[in-house]
């Protein structure tokens, strides 16, 4: 008995594409950015992504790991992924050098709502490795800066030496992006903010709440308290977006691992308007 739909194209969504490492950039202890290029010219020519999407990096013989796409250089047809080495696969990736090959399946998932940001003030709140998936959104905003109002980046990390993309902050500032960084702990050589990320949002001035859009990515608890601060400041919850995380394996909604309530993080997310996921974030061990 025939099912009702038959796929016309014979594509295997499980199969990675070979990519070559063009460059590795040490961002912080154990954190590296890989600039990757597809080996196949057609794939390289046709690939595109939207800020917020992720890919599955594949270390053959070891495994795959979901990593947000953290940058792009269309002129060179390379795409960047920033990875913290903490498990088997990411430690294998940490051994890669320029010229090495690995696998990539991409792009997957939902994107940041840059269309909603047009004409609005934008507050980007990132923590730790939550900044990489937001970085392409920052780049896109810079590309068409006049489309957006006030743009602020609040970025927190554990210590000053774990802040990433530091070399870009001056450039971002020059492009009218206010960059506010903070750390959880520091020695006295650090003259910047010390304290958790939501505090910077609590005291951000000026702020026109009805005109503001918040995009946040970082540890779940950090995001929950960031949203609390945003809502306390009067920012409507429909103007807050968060990028969530769960165990993502297939990235195509078939393996079941990434479910969060009724949402598949890999295909319904990872970027969600906050009110959609708020009920699930409140449940312990969901």
């Amino acid at each position: 008995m025939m099912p009702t739909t038959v796929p016309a194209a014979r594509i295997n969504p499980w199969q990675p594409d070979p990519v070559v490492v063009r460059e590795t950039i040490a961002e912080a202890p154990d954190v590296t950015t890989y600039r990757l290029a597809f080996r196949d010219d057609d794939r390289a020519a046709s690939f595109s992504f939207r800020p917020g999407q992720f890919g599955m990096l594949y270390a053959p013989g070891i495994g795959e790991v979901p990593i947000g796409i953290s940058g792009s250089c269309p002129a060179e047809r390379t795409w960047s992924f920033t990875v913290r080495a903490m498990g088997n696969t990411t430690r294998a990736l940490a051994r890669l050098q320029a010229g090495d090959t690995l696998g990539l399946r991409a792009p997957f998932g939902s994107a940041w709502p840059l269309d909603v940001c047009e004409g609005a003030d934008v507050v980007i709140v990132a923590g730790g490795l939550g900044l990489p998936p937001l970085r392409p959104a920052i780049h896109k905003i810079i590309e068409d800066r006049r489309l957006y109002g006030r743009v602020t980046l609040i970025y927190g990390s554990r210590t000053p030496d774990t802040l990433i993309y530091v070399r870009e902050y001056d450039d971002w500032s020059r492009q009218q992006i206010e960059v506010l960084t903070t750390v959880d702990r520091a020695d006295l050589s650090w003259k910047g903010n010390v304290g958790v990320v939501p505090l910077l949002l609590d005291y951000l001035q000026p702020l026109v709440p009805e005109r503001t859009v918040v995009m946040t990515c970082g540890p779940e608890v950090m995001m929950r308290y960031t949203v609390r601060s945003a809502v306390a400041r009067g920012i409507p919850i429909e103007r807050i977006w968060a990028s969530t995380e769960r165990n993502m394996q297939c990235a195509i909604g078939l393996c079941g691992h990434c479910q969060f309530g009724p949402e598949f993080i890999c295909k319904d997310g990872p970027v969600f308007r906050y009110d959609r996921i708020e009920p699930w974030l409140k449940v312990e061990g969901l």
Partner: protein
Amino acid sequence: MMEKQAIDDLLRQLGFTAGLPDPVLDELASVSAVVRFPAGATIFREETKNPFVYVVERGHVGLDMHVPTRGRVRILSVGPGEMLAWSALLGDSVMTVSAVALEDTQAVAICGSTLAKLCSTNHEAGYLLMRRMATSLAQRLTATRLQLLDLFAEPTVAASAGLREE
């Protein structure tokens, strides 16, 4: 020395005091002064008495605690709109942290004991000020808890031992 009216206006804008009723602001302004600290100046020292509650108008202040063999550890920094030295009102005025201006800083200094007397004689004002103080401290408590959770820490070996990695 700033005029009382000017201090009044300032208190209206600063996060910690904004929105309080006029009579209360008036009372506060009469026991406040605007003070300036150049970058690097110590505002008060841990374990010493400091009689003033401060509300930062502009600038940046680091709050440090001293731990033997660790030296001075910065546990928090505060900026415009934020309050510091709550012990001057609620405690015995002995500071629990050292405060140092990280950049040129201007703040409103309010005499803690006078403020305490105001609260006990004018209960309505007292209630409102204590609410503000409680809210500010609750916010700081939550922030401290988040710092305690160490959310950006790398998972420990113990946590991941025995589990499948990626």
